[in-house]
């Protein structure tokens, strides 16, 4: 039955469905539409508000499509060098965190997946429990450390501290991925006299692209979205990231709601693109990591 409805893709009632099923299906679709309103109407409102001139944001009655459709809010954001800098900072930091996390986690995952060693269980427990340490607890000593190491208000300060969130998850997910690959692959190279590094980088890493992609996307998202450390460990406007930039917009002069919504739309673009491109890897990898450690 799924096959008969799939090609049209229309959420209509299939006449070949037996009558009692048809009633059920109509009820199910009604429930799905109600759920979709809950999840998506707020997002639709954000999109629509970003195209309104600011005085019309609270027009009563509310209109989804304003009569004076305008791109002014987007122009205002994209021509403001201060705000463009927020985006540049977020990209630089998130990409650096992703590259570093992938490198370090691949090495650690290789050890967990391919070797048995003393202390393995303990280290494993430490890595799982590190995920539960509250960011607010780390923030106060980080503030002291980052200032002492002269990393306050710098990229390395944020990149380094973000790894505490990304690394444990990445190691767990990568270990899970390596465990699915037959060990004969890398053992074969080693019998030919190559070292474990060769086995890892020449054999395992090239065939682990799906795993690397899902870990990478997840890592990028964590770094792109981080708020608390970015708020506290940077000070000047030229070091702020997108989430902090959105908050700064909220504090400034009068509320430029349309600009905040436009910036929010622009701020979710990279995550949306990554999600659409890698949806399958992403959901699979995420659940693998979260669900079976």
């Amino acid at each position, binding site marked *: 039955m799924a096959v008969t409805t799939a090609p049209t893709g229309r959420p209509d009632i299939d006449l070949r469905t037996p009558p009692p099923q048809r009633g059920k299906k109509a009820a199910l679709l009604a429930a799905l539409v109600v759920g979709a309103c809950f999840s998506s109407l707020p997002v639709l409102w*954000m999109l629509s508000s970003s195209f309104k001139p600011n005085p019309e944001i609270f027009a009563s009655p509310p209109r989804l499509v304003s009569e004076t459709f305008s791109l002014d809010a987007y122009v205002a954001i994209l021509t403001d060098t201060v705000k463009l800098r927020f985006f540049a900072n977020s990209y630089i930091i998130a990409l650096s965190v992703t590259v570093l996390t992938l490198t370090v986690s691949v090495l650690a995952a290789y050890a967990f997946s391919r070797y048995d060693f003393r202390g393995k269980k303990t280290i494993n427990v430490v890595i799982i429990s590190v995920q539960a340490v509250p960011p607010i607890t780390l923030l106060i000593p980080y503030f002291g450390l980052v200032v002492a190491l002269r990393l306050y208000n710098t990229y390395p300060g944020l990149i380094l501290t973000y790894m505490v969130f990304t690394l444990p998850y990445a190691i767990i997910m990568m270990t899970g991925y390596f465990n699915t690959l037959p060990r004969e692959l890398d053992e074969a190279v080693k019998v030919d006299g190559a070292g474990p590094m060769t086995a890892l980088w020449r054999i395992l890493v090239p065939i682990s692209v799906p795993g690397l992609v899902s870990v990478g996307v997840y890592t990028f998202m964590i770094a792109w979205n981080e708020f608390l450390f970015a708020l506290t460990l940077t000070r000047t406007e030229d070091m702020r990231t997108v989430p902090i930039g959105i908050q700064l917009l909220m504090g400034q002069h009068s509320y430029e709601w349309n600009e905040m919504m436009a910036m929010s739309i622009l701020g979710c673009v990279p995550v949306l693109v990554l999600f659409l491109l890698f949806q399958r890897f992403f959901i699979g990898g995420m659940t693998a990591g979260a669900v079976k450690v």
Partner: protein
Amino acid sequence: MSTTLRPAAASRPAGEPPRGRAARRTPAHQIRRRLTPYGFLSPTGVLLIILMATPIIMVVWYSFMDGVITSDNPAFVGFDNYLEVLANPVFYTAVRNTFVFTGISVVAHFTIGLAFALMLNSPLLGDRTKGLFRALYVLPWLFTVAIVAVLWRLLLNPNGVVNYIFGSLGLTDGQTEWLANPSSALLAVTFINIWAGYPFFMISLLAGLQGIPRDLYEAARVDGAGAWQQFRNITIPQLRPIIISMALLDLIWTSQQFPLIWMTTGGGPINATEVLSTFTYKLAFTSYDFSLASAAAVIVLLLSMVLAFFYVRHQKGRD
């Protein structure tokens, strides 16, 4: 999982000499092989020492001192900071709010996540329909908390669209200050958190549902089990490990939520939405009392470690 983790050497029967080139293994080789995994783990180890062990020791040390970070020679004061935090009535407000916020959020995330996952997994739907609704249902999860916060401040504004809808339905007078009224603020931020967080549950439960063998349901149907019985006796028990994992992770993360509250209410009005993380943050970065904040941070850490203990035990039990 444990089966794949066995070392290659262990798969060879004991006493049998190793074959091939590996035969020229000397004690030096064996030592190197034994040290190799630690080599691979060393970058992680260094990072965890810098980013985890050191800060935790520092924060515990700070919590027993007075005037850390702000003063040049902090004095040891024992448990004074803890006593001062525990004597502060706002601390108890924050504990209560954290429990309400977290408890309602996790239950709602689970309920909505499961309901949506069950609907999306229905055999009555075509693949395209499923894909469309799944994309719509995942949407809230793709927005960073900062975006979620400004969006809902717009929606819940006294002149906003939520008030317009409620007002025209006659449910309210249409001027409710959802986030600025002490009686509604906590429920409002909890609602926002529910909206933002259920997709994480939904995706995992959906993956879990797809992993349940179909013949279990067929066997149950043959035995005459109805939909409810199948749900109670097959679906829920099969999903139980995922549900427990997700619930514990969600408890840990929600109880640590900071940005959402910081950007919607800032803990106000009059502490109505103050949670442990905003309480601690304000001690440090509004009052600049890093010693008191450290004591509060250690208390938060201990509470989280209780949850972490159950999470680790659960994860290990599943291996």
